[in-house]
């Protein structure tokens, strides 16, 4: 059984399919039709809802090191005004919470309900657009949209309202760049966005009533109550899975899952032993974390996902720590969760993170999912390859660490064994002389898939190249690197123009990319050559600044 709050109502989900999306649940089961379906693929934002949950409390004392990491993060200042303040607030309250038991703060995150399975919602509050208006009084966010003439056809509007609501709830100053980041996952075909930007700025600048702590406390109490009952919940599920009758059902081809009970088709392990047991007993069940990619199998390819093993409650997969000059990010950390730590240590990744899908997707999608999905264009893989990252994989008994270079064995295949999952990703920190950049080329700046992604990690000592690592996306069947380029420049003087020529000559024929809907093979080759030129210009431009970018973070 899954329990969550739908607006202010506690709901218990039993006897539902594992692949029921939150969007379909809201619209069809609950007739909450304010939430719209625009694309059912997480690309338009019409289905945006907000998830509220108590700011994360580590599940057990073993995460004390996590607190240390959070404390570090508080001191970290990031370029974007919005994110910066948000990071500070969240981490501070997390720390406060850890030391002072239960706090009264809720965090609010926009997600795409069309790519969210109900399994992700246990112990959380789902807020839909219907919940904002109090009787006949519009929420300030809604009123701002009306005042600014920010609706035309209105179909995207509820999604925008929810994304703006999540931003508004952060209670922090917001600038135009922050608005654009927050709304990057919401498409509007009518307005041209200008009045929406104005409405958002206006409402976020208003003197806001402080969070209704009484109400927050009530919600938090309700959520904690659900979570406190988890002990029974998880083991019950596991007992079911060990029940021979249910295991037999696994092999019953006639079993129509559409009305199978939740405990029969959904597993929510909390420990690695439980997870290993789930995988062993239910080899056909798919692992699901953020579901932003997996859900498309169901919504776009019409494949039923009969059994799912959710990683959402595996706290050990959500840890972030720094040890021995290595940043370790748990596989089930969402991209939003990992962002502060990643950008603290690798600030130049700001743009690639900014352009990694949209905020609602980043609020759900996990780093482990991005790696395990093994997309040839998944933007994190090229970056991590250039950083010589490694993947820690686990089977419940043993862990092994595999370098990311070599992890991808072919188009969407990896070295992961059937009984293994990704535990975490280890990223060596940069030394003082290392320059890291990650370039992304796509037709649209926001929420688009790379035609070419290129990550370069260069070490220059005394003007000479001592090391170069590369990572490429969109140029081969897997995320790739270019060994020839990496070795050819070592020892050369980086200031010398010959570095451009050598690199360009190598990159012009290093890969044989495909022509597809995003770009032609020629363009992709040309981009590798030209981005190399850009990199050289940017890393040499200290005395004579040459503008090389029209598209960069505001």
């Amino acid at each position, binding site marked *: 059984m899954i329990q969550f709050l739908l607006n202010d109502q506690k709901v218990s989900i039993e006897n539902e399919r594992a692949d029921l999306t939150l969007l379909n649940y809201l619209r069809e089961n609950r007739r909450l039709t*304010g939430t719209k379906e625009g694309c059912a693929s997480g690309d338009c934002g019409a289905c945006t809802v907000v998830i509220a949950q108590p700011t994360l409390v580590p599940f057990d004392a073993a995460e004390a090191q996590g607190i240390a990491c959070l404390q570090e993060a508080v001191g970290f200042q990031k370029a974007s005004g919005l994110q910066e303040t948000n990071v500070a607030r969240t981490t501070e309250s997390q720390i406060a919470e850890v030391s002072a038991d239960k706090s009264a703060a809720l965090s609010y995150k926009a997600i795409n309900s069309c790519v969210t399975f109900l399994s992700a919602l246990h112990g959380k509050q789902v807020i839909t657009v219907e919940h904002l208006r109090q009787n006949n009084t519009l929420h300030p966010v*809604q009123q701002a949209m009306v005042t600014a003439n920010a609706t035309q056809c209105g*179909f995207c509007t509820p999604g925008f309202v929810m994304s703006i609501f999540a931003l508004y709830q952060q209670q922090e100053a917001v600038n135009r760049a922050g608005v654009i980041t927050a709304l990057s996952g919401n498409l509007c*075909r009518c307005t*041209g966005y200008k009045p929406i930007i104005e409405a958002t700025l206006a409402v976020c600048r208003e003197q806001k009533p402080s969070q209704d702590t009484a109400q927050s406390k009530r919600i938090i109490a309700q959520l904690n109550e659900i979570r406190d009952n988890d002990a029974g919940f998880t083991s019950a599920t596991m007992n079911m899975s060990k029940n021979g009758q249910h295991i037999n059902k696994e092999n019953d081809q006639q079993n129509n899952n559409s009305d199978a009970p939740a405990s029969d088709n959904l597993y929510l392990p909390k420990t690695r032993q439980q997870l290993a047991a789930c995988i062993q007993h239910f080899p056909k069940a798919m692992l699901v974390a953020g579901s932003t990619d997996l859900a498309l199998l169901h919504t*776009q390819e*019409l494949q039923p996902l009969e059994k799912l093993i959710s990683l959402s409650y595996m706290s050990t997969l959500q840890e972030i720590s720094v040890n021995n000059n290595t940043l370790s990010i748990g596989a089930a950390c969402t991209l939003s969760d990992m962002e502060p730590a990643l950008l603290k240590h690798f600030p130049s990744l700001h743009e690639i993170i900014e352009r990694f899908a949209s905020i609602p997707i980043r609020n759900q999608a996990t780093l482990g999912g991005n790696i395990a999905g093994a997309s040839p264009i998944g933007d994190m893989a090229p970056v991590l390859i250039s950083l010589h990252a490694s993947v820690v994989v686990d089977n419940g008994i043993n862990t092994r660490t595999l370098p990311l270079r070599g992890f991808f064995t072919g188009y969407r295949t990896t070295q992961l064994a059937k009984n293994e999952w990704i535990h975490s990703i280890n990223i060596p920190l940069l030394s003082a002389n290392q320059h890291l950049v990650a370039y992304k080329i796509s037709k649209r700046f*926001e929420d688009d*898939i790379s035609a070419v992604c290129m990550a370069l990690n260069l070490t220059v000592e005394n003007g000479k190249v001592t090391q170069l690592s590369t990572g490429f996306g969109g140029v081969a069947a897997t995320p790739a690197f270019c060994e020839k380029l990496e070795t050819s420049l070592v020892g050369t003087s980086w200031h010398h123009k010959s570095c451009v020529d050598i690199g360009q000559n190598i990159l012009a024929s290093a890969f044989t990319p495909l022509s597809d809907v995003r770009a032609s093979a020629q363009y992709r080759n040309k981009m590798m050559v030209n981005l190399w030129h*850009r990199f050289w210009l940017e890393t040499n431009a200290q005395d004579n600044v040459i503008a090389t970018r029209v598209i960069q973070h505001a």
Partner: protein
Amino acid sequence: MRKLKEKIHPDTADKPTAKIANLRSSPHESAVRQVSGSARYVDDIPEPANLKHAAVGISAVASGIIKHINLDAVWASPGVIDVITSKDVPGHIDIGPVFKGDPVLADGEIKFHGQPIFAVLGHNVEVAKIAATLAIIEIEETPAILSVAVAKAAQSFVRPSQKMSQGDAAQGLKNAQHTAKGTLSIGGQEHLYIEGQVSMAIPEEEDRMFIYSSSQHPSEVQKLVAEVLNIKLNKVVVDMRRMGGGFGGKETQAAQWACIAALFAARKDCAVKLRLPRRQDMIVTGKRHPFENSFEVGFDDSGKISAAKIEVNGNCGHSPDLSDAIVDRAMFHVDNTYFLEHCHIDGHRLKTHQVSHTAYRGFGGPQGMIMAEAMIDKVARAIGKDPLSVRKLNLYGEHNGLTTPYGMQIEHDFSAAIIETLEKSSDYWSRRAAITTFNKNSPIIKKGLALTPVKFGISFTAKHLNQAGALVHVYTDGSIQANHGGTEMGQGLHTKVGQIVANEFGVSLNEVEITSTRTDKVPNTSPTAASSGTDLNGKAVQNACIIIKQRLAEFYAQLVGLRDQQVTFSNSAVHCGEHQLSWESLIHQAYYARVSLSASGFYKTPKLDYNRETGKGRPFFYFAYGAAATEVSVDTLTGEHKVDRVDILHDVGKSLNRGIDIGQIEGAFIQGMGWLTTEDLVWDEAGRLISNNLATYKIPAIGDTPAIFNVNLFDRPNEEDSIYHSKAVGEPPFMLAISVWCAMKDALSSLTNYTLDPQLETPATPERVMNAIASLEAQQ
């Protein structure tokens, strides 16, 4: 006798308090419901009991003959209730809106990749969708025509070609000091209404049918549903409250899904909903026509154009649909704001094995108008002048000429005044100088600036469509319901019409309710298209209001013993001489005096007279004008660009609602910018659309909105007698985005010190920008 509704307020005749909502900025009538999630779209309507769901099965080849359809697996799929092909259609199979060629389900022949062949009815959406993938269809493939070039070589047309000319273009080109030629490949555009196509059919008594459809053209849905069911039009009612976006994509493209839903509803006597999944929506519905155009232009040393020969080639897809009128409109706009003394225009309608391309905001106008700006840029680079100077030199006017290529006289030209005002307000020349300096010092990033005008003809070029009807009821509490033939797709039509009603009766906007568009309230309506919604329906509603007002005036004048000419309606009251009475009391008393409080209204646009045979006449009631100045930065290493600043001055006549009008201008500009930059339709070699979802087809996102985006209205009343002397605003500002394309070319031209005009095909994706740079390098 029943009691009339008790009055909420006592007689307010002495102190009318209600505010009059007339010509000011009222928010969108549905805004509060939209932000609350309570505005209902077709898929949100509470579902009837026993509702079933339909899905369509589509072709996996672009061209061929259907040899056999095996539906066994479809029938055997769990939850399937019914399956139909064209053989199961009791009435007409062809649902072509104007000309034949669009079967509701493939009728023996496959005409494009993705053509619907059969439809499935299931207990829920998912079972229907799954079953629709299970048919085994044997198709004998035939060679597919997949490009304009191949279609032209094969003389494959959906409709006969058309010409327009004035003077002697051939001689004019011979006599010209200079000539230049150019070609342009212009991409199509997916509408990407965020609400996809959807219909729900509810069978009523015997053979009657009630349809909810997200459609810009309910009357056509009514007609086509009646035809496929083989029943009379009076048995079908179509209801349309609001669309979640249309943009032309629901003018003819909405009917097919209503027809299929109705076919099932009639067969199974149950309510049926058909909502296309997004990817299928993108595959099976028509788009803005891609065009392949060319020109030859003759000009003198000053840049004055004397002659032009222009050819526009619309890729119409497999059937005529609306392509006759769309390519006509492209031809009507190749002059834009420029006088072409000697010109000849050819328009071809190429038939290809693609989905049938259809109406889209601008309706061919953009694909024609961009040629005028392409010619100007070409001339400017050839003679080394700033393109803006060449634009100004060639405007219609007494000094140049006032006759369009189709013989219509330009009467009330605002283009020169608008350009001049914008030139100053946007600081064009000092920015031009700054950009030239910037480009000299910036080896990688190049900036560009362009100021381009728009002149867009308002009226349906099919004369009969320029008519509208309305129905207005005043109820005994003084509240008013108005209904008209126009549909609300976000453009604010109902808001404007509500304001017109409130203004006519002199009451508060709160008294006025605009109800859903229904074929049983106002019959035989035209599509809400051609920017004409307010012009036509606003006038028709006004007409109905005037009829009721006349009755009320006669009644009140008689009551107070004066003449009805002295009666006025304002401030929620009726006035006659020294007498006045509150609106509510007036209605109350009029009802008891047996005065009819309901009327239908009608309007037809005057002055229209165009002869398609000769290509001469007056196709438009008037023109709407505007201009945009756009500055961009282009990265010459990657082809990426950014729109840095946009200044717009646009003519909406006397604005009915500034907020709504500015919203239309901003939205149209961004949509036009998407058409010319990021929105890239890609078909593969087999004719399959591969940019078929939102991950591969990119409309502008919020970050694409220019940080500096100044939009102003050119406040001058329409000289023609349009509704309150306003002007249509839906489509004209779309073409202001041509300034983005021209600015990008301007930036690239700087690579040649402004001596060459870059060959920048559209949409100008980073890759096409790089191609344009490569072609400049090749020419140097």
